[in-house]
Structures are given as C-alpha cells and as structure tokens.
C-alpha cells in the first residue's frame, strides 16, 4: 500500500530534497526494513544510504525497548502496586508505541517514493466543520448488539473543537453518546495553517453509554492530553508520517435499572492512553486524508481490552486501524476496524466545510 502512494513522477520544487533512490533499491530497502528490520529497526534506511535516519530509528527502538523493559520490570517488582502503576504502565505503553513506530517508520521511509512532490510542502489546517455518518458492526461474545448507526460532528471555534458523537444500535437497545471538547495548545487550527502535522491539545470528554437490554448505563468523565509529532523531524524520508499519543484519566459511574430491583451505583476509574503511527495519504487523495494504526488502552468502549490467555489477561487495550480519504475539499469516506474484546468495523461518509 505504501508503494502505491507513489504514483506520480517527481515534481521540480525549489526546496525539494535530492531525488530518492530508484525503485529497485527501495524494494530492497523495504525488504530490509522487514527483515532484519523487525530486529534492527532502521535497516531499510541503512540500505537506502540514509544512515542518519537509520541511526535515529535504531535509537528509537532502543529507547522503546528500554521503556518497555523498565516499565515491565517495575510492574513486576512492585507487584503492580496501586501507588506506582500509573507511571509504570504508561511507560510500558508508550515504550511499546515508540518501539513499534520506529519499525513502521522504517518501512514507510523505505517504501515511499513521492516525498519530493508538492504535497510535502503544503500548508494545511483542519476544516472548520466536519460531519460523519456511517455504519458500525460490533461482534461481541457477551452482548447481543451488532449493528449501529454512527454519527459525529466536529466544529472548530478558534482553537476549540467541539465534537459530539453517537453510536445507536439498530434495535435501539444500546446507545453511546459522547461529547468531546478539545483545546489546541499547539499546531494548526482553522484559520492558522501549518506545514507540519504537529499538534498538542487538551481534551475533556463526557460519555453516556446506555445498555438498555442489560439494565445498566455507564457515564464517564475524562481528561486527556493528546499530541501528534510529524516524523519529518526525524528525517526527510519520513515526511508524511506521524506518531500520535495521548494520556489521560477517566472516572465512571455505572447506574442500574433492573425492573423491580434497586441496585446501588458502582464506580470505577480508567487509565487512558493511546499510541498511533499514521501516514498522510496523498496522490489522488485530497488534503486531510490519512491512515493510522493504533493501540488504545481504553477498556470501556465497544472494542475494549484484548482477551489474552495467561499473564496479561485483561490488562491490554485494543488494536485498530482508522483511515479517511477525501475526494476533494468537501467529501470523503472513512473506515475503521478495532480488535479487542469485540471486533468493531465500519465505514462512514464525511462532509466538511471550511477549506483545510
């Protein structure tokens, strides 16, 4: 797929980097990014002759592995103590994210051949308004629901983003209402374009999830800090790629509505953390198109935590992939899939206003 991003011939841009190696070398580099790249991240870039970027990716691998080992060892030695689990679990999650991102970045940088084209020098900003309407399928071994309508709106007021969304089951027995408020602290926003994909934002979310068929509803208040980092900071071959991460905390109250029985409310809290590696799509795709592979530590959404046998059971979150493709400045499509306690997959139509 990465190779297919490079359909057009290089354009002569004044500030373009020197032309990249030919396709044969890139195929070889991509292979090296896989093997031995899975062990030695950056191998693809070494084959390309881009040693500095390769070194940085290898360093990132080492840092990521160190974070995972340090966090994992800390969790083991402390018996996952409630007093230290937050920093140690976060260290482990982000370490795994850094480790994996270095591997994926090496593949991307080795395979992509269109890095000198005009898209890589465009300035962009989010659209002022965006709406999404789609279908989501959820396969769960525990809950009977499966088919959902998904709606989402996104409105920017200066640096502030307001984003209500709704999942509603076809049968009407399950609905997830969510309101997300984000303040962009750094990076582009409508009216302020930026060449880099970087941003930092603070998020505040309120979610009400109603399980009518099972007589309970969960209401969750959460806060997170989210950031995206353009990988062109690492090297020119990684233009168009980014990593994204977030860290937050949520507090939930579950209330019950069993017929004829009074059941007290129950309370719980959650660590929120995500790590993602993404690519900006280009070629025929309009600006704002991207695909992202992510890990989400969230345990309270439809996908929830991964079911694993053995020692890690219950701890891990879910994996997923999300993409959006805009045909022009207004219309696009989106698709996503997630794998955790349930399999979630679906597609949407996107409409936006206010040129990105």
């Amino acid at each position, binding site marked *: 797929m990465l190779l297919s991003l490079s359909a057009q011939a290089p354009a002569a841009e004044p500030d373009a980097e020197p032309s990249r190696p030919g396709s044969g070398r890139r195929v070889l580099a991509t292979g090296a990014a896989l093997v031995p790249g899975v062990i030695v991240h950056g191998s693809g870039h070494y084959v390309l002759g881009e040693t500095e970027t390769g070194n940085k990716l290898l360093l990132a691998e080492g840092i990521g592995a160190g974070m995972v080992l340090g966090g994992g060892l800390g969790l083991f030695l402390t018996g996952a103590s409630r007093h230290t689990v937050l920093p140690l679990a976060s260290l482990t999650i982000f370490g795994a994210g850094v480790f994996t991102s270095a591997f994926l970045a090496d593949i991307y940088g080795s395979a992509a051949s269109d890095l000198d084209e005009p898209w890589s020098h465009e300035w962009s900003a989010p659209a002022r308004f965006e709406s999404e309407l789609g279908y989501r399928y959820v396969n769960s*071994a525990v809950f009977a629901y499966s088919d959902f309508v998904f709606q989402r709106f996104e409105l920017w007021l200066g640096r502030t983003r307001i984003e209500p969304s709704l999942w509603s089951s076809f049968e009407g027995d399950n609905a997830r209402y969510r309101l997300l408020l984000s303040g962009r602290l750094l990076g582009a926003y409508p009216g302020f374009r930026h060449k880099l994909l970087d941003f930092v934002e603070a998020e505040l979310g309120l979610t009400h999830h109603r399980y009518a068929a099972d007589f309970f509803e969960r209401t969750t208040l959460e806060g997170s800090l989210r950031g995206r980092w353009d990988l062109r900071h690492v090297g020119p071959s990684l233009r168009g790629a980014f990593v994204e991460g977030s860290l937050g905390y949520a507090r939930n109250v579950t209330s019950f509505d069993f017929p004829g029985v009074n059941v*007290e409310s129950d309370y719980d809290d959650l660590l929120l953390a995500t790590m993602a590696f993404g690519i900006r799509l280009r070629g025929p795709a309009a600006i704002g198109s991207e695909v992202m592979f992510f890990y989400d530590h969230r345990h309270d959404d439809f996908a929830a935590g991964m079911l694993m046998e053995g020692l890690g059971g219950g701890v891990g979150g879910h994996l997923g992939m999300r993409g959006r493709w805009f045909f022009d400045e207004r219309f696009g499509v989106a698709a996503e899939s997630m794998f955790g306690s349930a399999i979630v997959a679906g597609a949407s139509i996107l409409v936006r206003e206010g040129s990105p």
Partner: protein
Amino acid sequence: MRTIPGLALLLVSCLRPAEDRSERDLEVGHASRHGVSLDVDDGLAVVRELGRERIVLWASAPAWTFTLDHPGAAGDGVALEIHNAMPDGVLGGEGVTIEELPGIVSTRKSYRLTLTGSPLRLSFMPANAARGGSFRFALLSDVQEALDRVGDIFERINAEPDVSFLFGAGDLTEQGTHEQLQQYQDELLALNVPYYTTLGNHELGQSPSLYHDYFGRGSFSFVYRQVRFTLLDSASATLDRAVWDWLDGWLEQGRNGVHVVSMHIAPIDPSGVRNGSFASRAEASKLIGTLAAAGVDLTVYGHVHSYYAFENAGIPAFISGGGGAVPERFDDVGRHFVVFDIDSQDGLLASKVVQVDD
C-alpha cells in the same frame, strides 16, 4: 483469497478464549472405563481413577451425588477413595453395602463397597450439610511460585478454629503443569479441611489447561448449609458465553438464600488504572449488576496480590491474593488468608485478615 475468511474466523474465535474450558467443565465427573461408568451430578467431583476394583474421586464440593454403573456381580467388592472430602462426610446409597475404612488424613475417605446390583445411586455429604446456621470458611488465592512455602499457610489455617473449608480464587500454581498441580494436591494433605477452588490465569500456562484433571470444573455451584457458593472461571478476564448461561440458573437457584460468588479476576479492579480486572468494563458492569440484582451477598476474588475490601454495587467484595506470589508493594499486607463468618439467614457476619508472616 482464503486467508481473509480464515483470519476473520481466527479473530472471532479469539473472542471466546475460555470456550474450550467451559466445554471441558461439562466433561468433569463423567467417565467410563473397563465397563464401569460413573456420573457425578453437576460435575462436583473429578474421576481420578476408574476401574473394576478401585475408584478414586476428587471432591470439588462438600456434598454431591453420583451414579455408579458397575458390571460386577452381586457380592463383588470395589474400593472407593474420596480425596479432598469433608472430614465428617458420610457416603450413603441404596443397593450397596458400604464399609468405611480407617483413613490416614482427615480429608481422605476410604470405603469398601459390596455390590448388590447396578446402577447404584450414591451420595457423599457432611452430617450437617443441609442444616442452616453460621459457619466459617477461609479464602486463599495466588500461591503460584510460593508453592513450596504454602504448607505454613495451611498450618496457620488449621490453627484457626471452626473453619469448615478453604475456598480458593485461583492461581494455585505458577504454570499449571502436572508437577505443580500434583504438588499442590500433595501439600493439601497437610490441611485439615477440604479446598474448593476455581482456576486462575496462571493455570493457563499449559494448553490445553490441565487444571480440570486435578481440581475439576472451573465454573460450578454448590450448596453448603443452605448457603450457595458459585465459582466462576474468569481466568481469561471474561466469562465464557456458556458460563453466563449457567450463571443465570445458579443465581435463580440462590435468589432466596445467601449466595457467595467467587472468581479469580475481579470484574473491576478497585485500582481501575491498573485494570487487574475484566478486559471489558461493559462486561464487568453487566456482571456486577446481574449479581447485585440477584441478591448475591458476598463476592471474593484473587489475582491482585494484596488485600482489598470494597463493594460491587453494594455487594461486599474482597480481593485476597496473599498465597505468596510477588506481593503488591507498599501495602504491608504480605502473605495472608481471610476468614469469613457467614450465616444462612443473615449473610456475611464478619471477616478478618490473617497475616501469616507476622
């Protein structure tokens, strides 16, 4: 092209990691060998050995009934051993002469059965099994790598007065190997009362799990002195769909009485950011609500290597993972077990933590 549906099937199968174990639950207590067949009602005992002359059962509950179909002629003798038995348990049945033989340890009962016909309907139950009132039981979980040291915990439990049985919430062993499971059962010979337990995630170190061959079902329910005890296999941080169905029945049966529910991984960890709990909070909320709506009186868990007393939607809840596995630091709990006083009318009367390494 075949890889995509194959991958989809693989992913869907990953959504029921405990499916094999719930199927295995249904096989526990049923065996047929050498022309002899034995069926324990509700799978409340494991058939460890089945022959024409010798039968060995491992009890997973205080009281249970079984059917023995033996091809022997009238007057033939069969040796029956019941391991992990209530010390005051009595074997009874019609159409058979039962002679109790002297035992070496209190939880091993030996009998000589003289057949007069077949099939035989037999029952094993403590003298006071059906009588209500107050009694005590202890809770111990998460022994794991400390299996060599569990003997002194059993010694301390023996010193605790009037404990009827030891209840377990999983992680008996580090990896669930034959050797470790057998060692646990050997160590139990030092305990004066029987041990009824479910499995933990550490018993899943072998595939398929060997646990059922030694200790029996992961999910089951029994009644002792009018109090219902239900143990659920949550070792994969979820309940299998089949277990959810069984649970509905057990909750219905226990609705009008006192009901204690145990599982290894708690639906929700009191320290939610750690998430030593179910993989899905929605499933956890569904389970907690279901238990509370059915009037469950007490929930007990393991998995977290410390002691927590909290509530699940108003149900008194306890986590006790003090069997000796790497302890949760900075809480000064260490190796421990918990003793519960419970009454068939009034539910939980009291609980106390007994620290072993003081």
